[in-house]
């Protein structure tokens, strides 16, 4: 039999590579684990405000091993009710260290932290807002140096 190939359609699939440390060493996640705890859409789909999945609507992994669409967790942490806590376990939400998946979000989270920090700083020192911002920034820089630049979250910078 002779086969002539007339056309080739290439198809690819992708998923986020989400590091898991299940206690039993298994890599399987249950169905519940595969949706964002905030919007309940699949990690591989987008958050409610995005159109295209992937880099434009990426995931972040928390220090507590809870994952969310970055837009979802960002919106939550921006509310006052959140007190900076993870929606699932109510621990302080921090990006997990040294994960490639978190890298692109470090700056964004740093800004969020700084904004919250300066908002509160403003309450205590209305007259020197700028000074407060500078101080916060200096502190932030310090935190970064201490951690060799691979962590942005610092407990002291989260405003409760």
């Amino acid at each position: 039999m002779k086969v002539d190939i007339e056309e080739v359609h290439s198809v690819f699939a992708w998923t986020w590579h989400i590091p898991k440390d299940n206690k039993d060493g298994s890599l399987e996640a249950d169905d519940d684990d595969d949706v964002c705890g905030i919007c309940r859409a699949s990690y591989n789909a987008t958050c409610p405000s995005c159109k295209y999945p992937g880099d434009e609507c990426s995931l972040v992994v928390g220090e507590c091993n809870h994952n969310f669409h970055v837009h979802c967790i960002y919106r939550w942490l921006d509310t006052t009710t959140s007190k900076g806590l993870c929606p699932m376990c109510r621990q302080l939400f921090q990006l997990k260290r040294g994960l490639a998946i978190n890298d692109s979000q470090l700056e964004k989270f740093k800004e969020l932290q700084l904004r919250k920090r300066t908002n509160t700083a403003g309450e205590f020192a209305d007259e020197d807002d700028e000074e407060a911002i500078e101080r916060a920034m200096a502190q932030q820089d310090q935190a970064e140096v201490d951690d060799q630049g691979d962590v942005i979250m610092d407990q002291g910078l989260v405003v409760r």
Partner: protein
Amino acid sequence: MASLPKRIIKETERLASDPVPGISAEPHEDNLRYFAVTIEGPEESPYENGVFELELYLPDDYPMEAPKVRFLTRIYHPNIDRLGRICLDVLKNNWSPALQIRTVLLSIQALLASPNPNDPLANDVAEEWIKNEELAISKAKEWTKLYAGKR
């Protein structure tokens, strides 16, 4: 109005296909964010055999903001006031977007099973509850019969 978020659609579907025992929640036809809710009084509570009607509204910011829930049926309970407003931490400071309509309604059902007069909303009820629990419980039973009878 913006289209209904997927999460709300999913929650609504699951409430219908896999309802919580003793709880029903149905969205209004003309506003899918507004739910008519019934909660059966838990067994062995003063509210046993009662069916309580509530209204639940999902604000635009849901799930970043908690649902608004209110009793429509009158109830004698230290954490629920005359207007049906409910004093429950998860509806206020302890809201988390990981919670859902069903978990909120379960919390309310649990609140019926264990009234907490030390964190009152209806002060007069709480006072009576602390002063004479037996009398308060019998009053709660009476109100249940009076206002929350099964139809």
